């Protein structure tokens, strides 16, 4: 059955339940697809043997009439999640040879639900980037190309390997993490669904930290339903993560009622940024119309502090990162480059181990926290963060969800924007405020650009109200009927 890889989590699980095929067959199809598409560089570590062994165990459970929500379903893991005894790199040279002696809470939950591990996915180094260009293991190639133009495009970042692998049908789904847009922007660039839950919804335990107060793991899938199913497995309070919320996990899939009548959809007037392509503006309007047609009411809202979101983010995230990355010192694990003294060993190790973007952010972070600058930068940024969160709070008095574009452009070519970090940072202009406010947000593939590339729309929900967000996403998905696939450029496809 050649279209195994076109299944969704939901349809594949139903097929397994109905014994139409085995988990081993399903997994083997994905293992083969991965082998045939190594050119995408989506994986840092492939674990076909593990995947097949897990699939075999799944088949045995299924045969006994047992099996979890994700039983027998092959997925892939962003290489920021620690996986026991499997190389975990954060796409950084500095974690060379690091095999964690523990399993992250999220991956453990996924395996406990029956999912099979295809491997570890490429990403921007330490999740710092919006193009997947900063990986020590080389860039990930977006499976999409513009028709008639064979230039390679970026998949977005930092969960670029996750988005590319799901879009290219190398995995039924993947985990991502989102600090400033790292799930939603690559989901938008690759034409898939990416969901960043409310901060505290999913455990961060065992996920290599970038910026602790912003990082949040979430599912990357091809359908909204799959995102709801996978989030249900990933979410939940973890006593090992002090910032995870002691809240019950709702049945996210049950939220997909298709009924959004009477719902108020906020349209932030400040998100009509200068220089945004008309086609994105048009897609946004299309999204508003679709929701209106389904019975929702668009309301204009104001998020005036949004303009401060990027500078605020680029102070807080590097500040936290500068401390989070201090542990990579060559003493206990990963790369060590010797030196004549302890300080020299630190310098040699960190100089060789970190890439340019990581170094830039560590330096920015150390600077904004240093004596004499703390008040002017870090403290001010914290105050702005509070104001940005208040913006959303006030907006949600007038609306139930917020609709925006996911990113101000479609995927760009590899090598573009590389000489201007600020232009690169602008990619996250619509996604960053959501992280600063700790809210849930998700990107839905809504259409194609004139160039034939996928474009996403973002839905933002109230804190811990992923259900309403998912309900709206389901309606948007049905209306958009996004069926385009990046097949033409892929190996192993007709």
């Amino acid at each position, binding site marked *: 059955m050649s279209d195994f890889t076109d299944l969704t989590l939901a349809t594949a699980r139903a097929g397994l339940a109905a014994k139409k095929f085995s988990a081993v067959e399903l997994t083997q199809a994905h293992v083969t697809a991965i082998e045939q598409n190594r050119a995408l560089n989506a994986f840092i570590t492939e674990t076909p043997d593990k995947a097949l062994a897990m699939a075999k165990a799944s088949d045995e459970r299924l045969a006994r009439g047992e099996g979890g929500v994700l039983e027998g379903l092959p997925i892939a893991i962003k290489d920021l*999640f620690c996986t026991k005894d499997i190389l975990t790199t954060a796409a950084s040279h500095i974690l060379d040879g690091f095999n964690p002696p523990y399993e992250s809470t999220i991956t453990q939950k996924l395996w406990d639900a029956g999912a099979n591990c295809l491997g570890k996915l490429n990403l921007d180094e330490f999740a710092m980037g919006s193009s997947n260009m900063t990986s020590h293991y080389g860039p990930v190639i977006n499976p999409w190309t513009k028709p008639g133009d064979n230039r390679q495009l970026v998949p977005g970042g930092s969960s670029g390997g996750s988005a590319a692998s799901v879009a290219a049908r190398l995995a039924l789904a993947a985990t991502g993490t989102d600090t400033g847009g790292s799930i939603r922007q690559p989901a938008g660039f690759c034409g898939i669904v990416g969901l960043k839950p409310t901060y505290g919804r999913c455990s961060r335990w065992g996920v290599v930290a970038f910026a602790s107060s912003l990082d949040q793991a979430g599912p990357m899938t091809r359908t909204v339903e799959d995102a709801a199913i996978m989030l249900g497995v990933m979410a939940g309070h973890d006593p090992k993560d002090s910032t995870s919320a002691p809240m019950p996990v709702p049945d996210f899939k049950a939220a997909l009622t298709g009924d959004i009548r009477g719902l108020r959809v906020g349209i932030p007037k400040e998100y009509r940024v200068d220089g945004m392509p008309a086609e994105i503006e048009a897609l946004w309007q299309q999204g508003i119309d679709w929701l209106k047609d389904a019975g929702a009411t668009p309301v204009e809202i104001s998020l005036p502090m949004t303009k401060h979101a990027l500078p605020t983010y680029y102070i807080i995230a590097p500040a936290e990162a500068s*401390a989070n990355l201090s542990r990579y010192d060559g003493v206990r694990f990963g790369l060590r480059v010797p030196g004549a003294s302890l300080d020299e060993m630190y310098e040699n190790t960190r100089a060789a181990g970190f890439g340019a973007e990581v170094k830039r952010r560590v330096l920015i972070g150390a600077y904004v*926290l240093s004596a004499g600058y703390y008040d002017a930068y870090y403290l001010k940024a914290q105050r702005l963060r509070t104001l940005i969160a208040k913006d959303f709070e006030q907006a949600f008095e007038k609306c139930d969800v917020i609709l925006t574009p996911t990113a101000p452009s479609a995927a760009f070519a590899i090598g573009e924007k590389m000489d201007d970090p600020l232009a690169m940072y602008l990619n996250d202009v619509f996604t960053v405020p959501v992280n600063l406010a700790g809210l849930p947000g998700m990107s839905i593939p809504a259409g194609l650009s004139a160039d034939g590339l996928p474009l996403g729309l973002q839905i933002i929900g109230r804190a811990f109200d992923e259900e309403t967000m998912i309900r709206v996403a389901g309606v948007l998905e049905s209306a958009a009927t996004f069926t385009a696939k990046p097949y033409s450029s892929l190996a192993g496809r007709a």
Partner: protein
Amino acid sequence: MFTSDVVMREETLIDGRTGKWEIIIGLEVHAQVTTLSKLFSGAATAFGAEPNTQVSPVDAGFPGMLPVINEIAVEKAVKTGLGLNAVINQVSVFDRKNYFYADLPSGYQISQYTQPIVGKGRMVLDMADGSTREVGVTRLHLEQDAGKSLHDQHKTLTFVDLNRAGVPLMEIVSEPDMRTAEEAGAYLKKLRSILRYLGTCDGNMEEGSMRCDCNVSVRRPGEPLGTRNEIKNVNSIRFVMQAIEIEARRQIEILEDGGVIKQETRLFDPNRGETRAMRSKEEAHDYRYFPDPDLLPLVLDPAMIERVKASMPELPDAKKARFIADFKLSPYDAGVLVAEQSTAHFFEQVAQGRDAKLAANWVTGDLFGALNKLGVGIEASPISADGLGGLIDLIADNTISGKIAKDVFAAMLETGKSAGDIVESQGLRQVTDTGAIEKSIDEILAAHTDKVSEYRSGKDKLFGFFVGQVMKATAGKANPAMLNDLLRKKLAP
């Protein structure tokens, strides 16, 4: 930031070459919280384990590991705060203190900077002369300890032991309210006593579960505060007192020679009897403190605070006041007896239903002397509280004299037998039979008629001679009061 409203006391000043100086002392004590597990992980905290056997991935700063606060450590910090008469802050914040060192696995220490769990408090010091002083406590905060670098294991390499990494510490900061090394010593003794009463720190300085940084400056009486130096990590009360004396002398010498004090961190070398510069203010780290985003602000449940309050033991100050009031002890004796909870408990058992004054004398005198000689604490005393009480009972009911009691005490120490058994088996029961004593007196007086005449002609001092002779004749068993009484009558002209 270095102010003090302590009134200048002439007697605390020390003489320099050019006049008198006042020493200003503030102490920062790191006290290891008595817990089974670390401040942010479940790893054990036991002292003396094999290197790197009590380390979780959290303590080792592994990727993706997250801290979770140890609630027992929080409760003990609250308890300590209450014991220091301090403000408990219902909301406090953990910060990251950033610096690189091989034994600091995460590259930052989780500490509390601007919002500690405990605010201002105060402590009363018991001085050797029985007087007291009050010293302010600035704050108490929770933080994790670092690991240990071992530089002596290899010619060129440094080994790292992370067993201590993440062990919970309370940093207790005093106001600069002390003026003499003795006061600093009394502060540490009192703090240790309170911590031990509360069971929040074992106060063991040799094992490093209590360490002290001393801030020392000097000034001319009445002048503004001078530049201070911090002497790091002094590990005994005696060394703290020595280090302060030596550092103050050093500063006075510099100032009297027309020099200025540079603000720096110094180390005390007890072998050479000097303090040495470690790093200057310019070399001081910029720790880039900021709130730890892995930990939410610590919000204390008022019910927990109430529960801890209800569980507070009677602390040394209250106990001392009670001993003075109920047992009519001197402030000094009371102070000595309450310093350790176990001593106070032992004393109360001995004093129960007996002459408390006598009990205090026996405990602080003979018993302490014996324990000192044996090098054991009161918990390991070979004579139990009941045993000592039994001895005191024999004195009270005139079975033995106080003098004989000393011998009985020595025998008790040696044999572990009860006072009663010893008195019986050795026939030490004192003679209270008037006839027997009289008979003995008569014999002595008859044998020393010359001395009797001398006495009667005014040589009063000879009274002692006759007492001695009778005692000798009765093997010390004559009741001293009865003997005195009868002798005086017989010698009367």
